[in-house]
């Protein structure tokens, strides 16, 4: 087993990894910026190294500082968490070069999956269904038009290096393709330093469903029951659940098998997520995230597998320990992302002091958070304060447990998305299950005597 792991991250995910290390008897090294000197990840790790100033570019994205911290503390391995350097192929490559084990796949695989058109090609070659569209990057608008004639309209132009909706344009008719192609390419170039774009059929009323995988790189591979991440706001996931409500068993098996084929074809090592869109009974590959995800706990709850412990076992060269039953979901789990954003003021990010903090307890409640009373939320990083995960035998009970736990969750000093989640759980369509990714964009938040409520606007789904 690895003896010492440097955790190249902050916040709740740094704690998650430190906890797993402690439970496995691995020593942990926290790295922190000067803005995080009062952070729990620093306090709970066995060792801690200050790596730079508050801006992430000087600290959590500062590769030399992190590698130096690993060398100084004698860490055998680096766990990147999610975000920051987790999908940075150069970082993984430097780790490989300096002989520190990167907990994750090889830099080659990270690099390939980070290029969306290369990823689509790899998926197609592994027999995984991909959305009908261009075969990789479209060189120019003329090629885009040829592809458009095949896949039909509406279609979507997407940045090859992209994510988060940047460099993306929906095109309703061929007449608008030229302009959209140029705009998307320019936006992609500005945002990612790479203006290449590709084309896909535009799917409507789609659900975002993803499959967690673990693989030993040439050894065993396990694919786990899916997560439904369709509750999003501006392409940011807010609430995730497992299993996906109402998903037919054959679709589940289909996605799990497809994910496992891709992973095997890649010679993938560690934990990863294969993301699909699901629409009208069909599923298509979107992309693969070559890292742990924020929403991994819902899979842990319905399978009993400790995904971070398994990452560390695989990175240590030990076999992974996944029980047989883990391929079938047992119960229902929902995760709520509690962000420091004010849903009453257009999700304005909040920073400041957490004056009071009391997470919910009792049966079927898990909280992953770096908060404590008196903690100051720094303005430099992302807004995730806590993940509340509820688990119960069935979805209806999990929703009621979620309402109970959200209601109990006390955070004072900063506004959070807690009231938004209560509103989502009260929504009739959500309770019925199986809503599409446009769920939130088709609703407005109304203030109903202090409580938030979602009200449908525009066309029904």
């Amino acid at each position, binding site marked *: 087993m690895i003896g010492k792991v440097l955790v190249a991250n902050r916040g709740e995910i740094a704690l998650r990894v430190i906890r797993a290390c402690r439970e496995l008897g691995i020593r942990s090294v926290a790295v922190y910026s000067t803005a995080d000197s009062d952070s729990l990840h620093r*306090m*709970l790790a066995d060792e801690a190294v200050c790596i730079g100033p508050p801006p992430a570019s000087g600290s959590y994205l500062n590769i030399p500082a992190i590698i130096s911290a690993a060398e100084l503390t004698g860490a055998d391995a680096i766990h990147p968490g999610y975000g920051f350097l987790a999908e940075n192929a150069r970082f993984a490559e430097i780790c490989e070069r300096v002989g520190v084990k990167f907990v994750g796949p090889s830099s080659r695989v990270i690099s390939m999956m980070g290029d969306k058109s290369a990823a689509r090609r790899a998926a197609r070659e592994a027999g995984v269904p991909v959305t009908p569209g261009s075969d990789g990057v479209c060189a120019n608008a003329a090629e885009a038009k040829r592809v458009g004639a095949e896949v039909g309209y509406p279609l979507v132009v997407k940045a090859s290096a992209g994510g988060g909706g940047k460099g993306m344009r929906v095109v309703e008719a061929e007449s608008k393709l030229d302009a959209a192609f140029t705009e998307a390419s320019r936006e992609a170039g500005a945002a990612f330093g790479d203006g290449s774009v590709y084309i896909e059929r535009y799917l409507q009323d789609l659900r975002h469903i993803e499959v967690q995988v673990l693989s030993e790189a040439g050894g065993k591979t396990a694919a786990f029951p899916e997560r439904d991440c369709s509750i999003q706001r501006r392409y940011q996931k807010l609430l995730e659940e497992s299993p996906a409500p109402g998903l037919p068993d054959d679709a589940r098996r289909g996605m799990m098998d497809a994910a496992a084929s891709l992973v095997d074809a890649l010679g993938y090592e560690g934990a990863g997520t294969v993301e699909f869109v699901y629409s009208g009974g069909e599923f298509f590959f979107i992309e693969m995230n070559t890292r742990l995800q924020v929403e991994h706990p819902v899979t842990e709850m319905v399978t009993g597998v400790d995904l971070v412990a398994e990452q560390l076992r695989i990175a240590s060269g030990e076999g992974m320990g996944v029980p047989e039953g883990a391929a079938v979901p047992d119960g229902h789990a929902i995760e709520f992302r509690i962000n420091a954003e004010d849903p009453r003021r257009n999700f304005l990010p909040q920073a400041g002091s957490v004056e009071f903090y009391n997470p919910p307890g009792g049966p079927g409640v898990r909280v992953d958070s770096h908060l404590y009373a*008196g903690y100051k939320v720094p303005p430099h990083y992302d807004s995730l304060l806590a993940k509340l995960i509820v688990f119960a035998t069935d979805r209806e009970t999990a929703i009621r447990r979620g309402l109970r736990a959200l209601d109990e969750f006390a955070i004072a000093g900063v506004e959070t998305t807690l009231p938004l989640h209560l509103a989502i759980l009260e929504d009739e369509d959500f309770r019925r299950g199986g809503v599409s990714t446009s769920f939130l964009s088709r609703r407005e938040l109304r203030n109903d005597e202090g409580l938030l409520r979602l009200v449908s606007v525009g066309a029904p789904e």
Partner: protein
Amino acid sequence: MSETRSEDNQDEALVGGEPSGKGRGSLPLDDVSRIVDLLRESGVGEIQVRQGELEISVKAKPEAPAPQRVPEVEASSREPASQPEPQAEANGLHAVRSPLVGTFYRAPAPGEEPYVEVGDTVMVGQPICIVEAMKLMNEIPADVSGEVVEILADNAGGVEYDQPLFRLRPE
């Protein structure tokens, strides 16, 4: 800290380009002093007095609310290297801090003389040590001129970002 408003006014008046003594006279420091005494003896929080052109405002120091802290016993971390060292700096000393994580070397190369010793006087910009990171030797210059009072890091030991390396007495 007992802040006095009249001090601020003084500044503004000077900035305003009217440094004339006309009508301003000297500050009524005796009055200020007596109000400060009154505040301290009485234990009240704030006293403001205004009479005509004169205004004096004295406030008690806010009670330091005991900061919520994770109790020491729960935390296993080392002492923060990045904490300011108010003691040293209050004494008029200046800490040269590490601008990066790495290994601290006092000399340019093994076997050579250290850049500086305690008692040496250094100039701004003069290299005083090396911090090695990723096989790169980074010469760290003094950021003030002055006398080297203390060397805080061990040769060939690790240093964190912002960790004090030297204490200088600025010229």
